[in-house]
């Protein structure tokens, strides 16, 4: 797939994908959003901040091409250019994998700042895939962000953790510490949303979540088999053929870049009566 790279000066926006809670879909979303941005022609790089538990490279399908990583660059053992992996499907997309053998203490504020500075000079969007939790790794991922995508599942513990993270975004980041700076633009991305379970009252509704978090909604990603399938083959879901989830991510990406896309909550197509009756036999 080729896209036309934009020739104007790079935007250099840093977007952190964070959540607090683990397993809500941060890495999947980081992969899908960065691929979606690249697909629209934006020069995009996605950085894995989950030092020691690296997964982004697998989701992006480049785990066999990792030679140097983020930590090598921070410690000066490699140049940034050597560590960046160009995606084979989208030439506007690069991946900066992290180390599997080190831990989060290897991240230094100065090192991260320096790398982001270099990346800002070349890329339109720098997507930081935050680790779970609110410790060093997550703090480093969010500290220099301009925008935040808070990935949340429609479920109470996830919502509470997201709220905690929103608090940190508005207090423990560079923008929060610099007086006069515009605060980080935080938006919530609701993932694993299952309309059928919402309808029978088993899952929180979009309104419930937004009422608690009180930030704008970036998108609603339906629970979809396409996501696990895409992860397993190492393809961001937006590049893995049409699906409800891919559509929802593409809409979210468009909103992220400033387009006004109507919020639609698409579900997996429900099996019809005949399919339900005879589906298993076939």
């Amino acid at each position: 797939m080729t896209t036309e790279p934009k020739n104007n000066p790079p935007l250099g926006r840093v977007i952190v994908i964070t959540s607090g809670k683990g397993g809500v879909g941060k890495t999947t979303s980081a992969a899908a959003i960065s691929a979606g941005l690249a697909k629209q022609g934006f020069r995009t790089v996605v950085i894995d901040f989950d030092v020691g538990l690296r997964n982004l490279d697998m989701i992006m399908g480049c785990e066999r091409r990792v030679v140097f990583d983020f930590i090598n660059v921070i410690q000066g053992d490699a140049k940034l250019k050597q560590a960046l992996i160009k995606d084979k499907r989208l030439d506007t997309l690069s991946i900066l994998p992290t180390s599997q053998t080190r831990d989060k203490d290897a991240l230094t504020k100065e090192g991260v700042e320096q790398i982001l500075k270099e990346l800002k000079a070349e890329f339109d969007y720098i997507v930081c895939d935050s680790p779970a939790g609110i410790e060093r790794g997550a703090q480093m991922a969010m500290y220099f962000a301009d925008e935040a995508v808070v990935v949340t599942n429609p479920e109470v513990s996830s919502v509470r953790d997201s709220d905690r993270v929103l608090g940190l975004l508005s207090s423990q980041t560079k923008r929060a510490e610099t007086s006069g700076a515009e605060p980080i633009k935080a938006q919530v991305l609701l993932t694993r949303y299952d309309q059928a379970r919402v309808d029978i009252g088993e899952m929180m509704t979009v309104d419930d979540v937004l009422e608690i978090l009180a930030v704008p909604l970036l998108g609603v990603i339906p629970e979809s088999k396409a996501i696990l399938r895409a992860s397993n083959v190492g393809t961001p879901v937006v590049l893995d053929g049409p699906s409800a989830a891919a559509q929802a991510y593409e809409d979210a990406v468009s909103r992220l870049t400033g387009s006004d896309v109507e919020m639609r909550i698409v579900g997996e197509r429900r099996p019809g009566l005949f399919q339900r009756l005879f589906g298993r036999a076939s």
Partner: protein
Amino acid sequence: MSDRYARTRHDPSPATVAAFQVRGRFLTALALRIDTESADDTFYAQLDEQLLRTPQFFSGAPVVLDFINAPGFGDPDRMRELVGNLRRRELQVFGVQNAVGIEETVLQGLGLIALTAGRDAPLPRDNSPVRPVEAPRPVQNKVIRSPVRSGQMIVAEQGDLTVIGSVASGAELVAAGNIHVYGPLRGRAMAGCHGDESAHIFCQSLNAELVAIAGLYHTSEMLEDAARQRCTHIYLEDEKLRMEVIA
């Protein structure tokens, strides 16, 4: 050793000139509290590091072993090994305390005495005279114009606290005076934190984890059902928290 002491105490020789004098003697001992069930390599490594760091502190000082956190040393062999290893490090171990499971004979065999009395350190005593009444501090109210997130704690040390926005579950509001929340209150709100019983809490929708006025509190379970999710005024009356739906 114990035999000799027993004789001097119970069967003194009939001497005419006092051959000894009994005097009180206080000594300061170091108490080494064992916080592990078994004295393994990590334990000794940490101990050696400590000894290396402050060698003078331990040299020649009598040491008491405290087993309050380590009942596992009732085993005589383990005890023997521990004391041996400590003495090899030139720690003058002479007694044990809180050694519930350790048999007397084992202690005697190691030349240790069981201490039953004594504290770790003298308790700090507050000898300061009753503080004079402070001049009333100027009131400083606080207004927060953004949602209070889970994990955040907002304190108005000397006045009222007003939040325009929601207060999430896991957030905490503390004020010397009243608390007003123009939004749903899902976290904790503690008004009158310095004991002001005339403090009030107002919120647009009550769903708090805890509300307290001057230390008297209600948890979420104890909230009156009539006030739940309603615009509520909470105040103290006859040392009880009252909740009144006001809109």
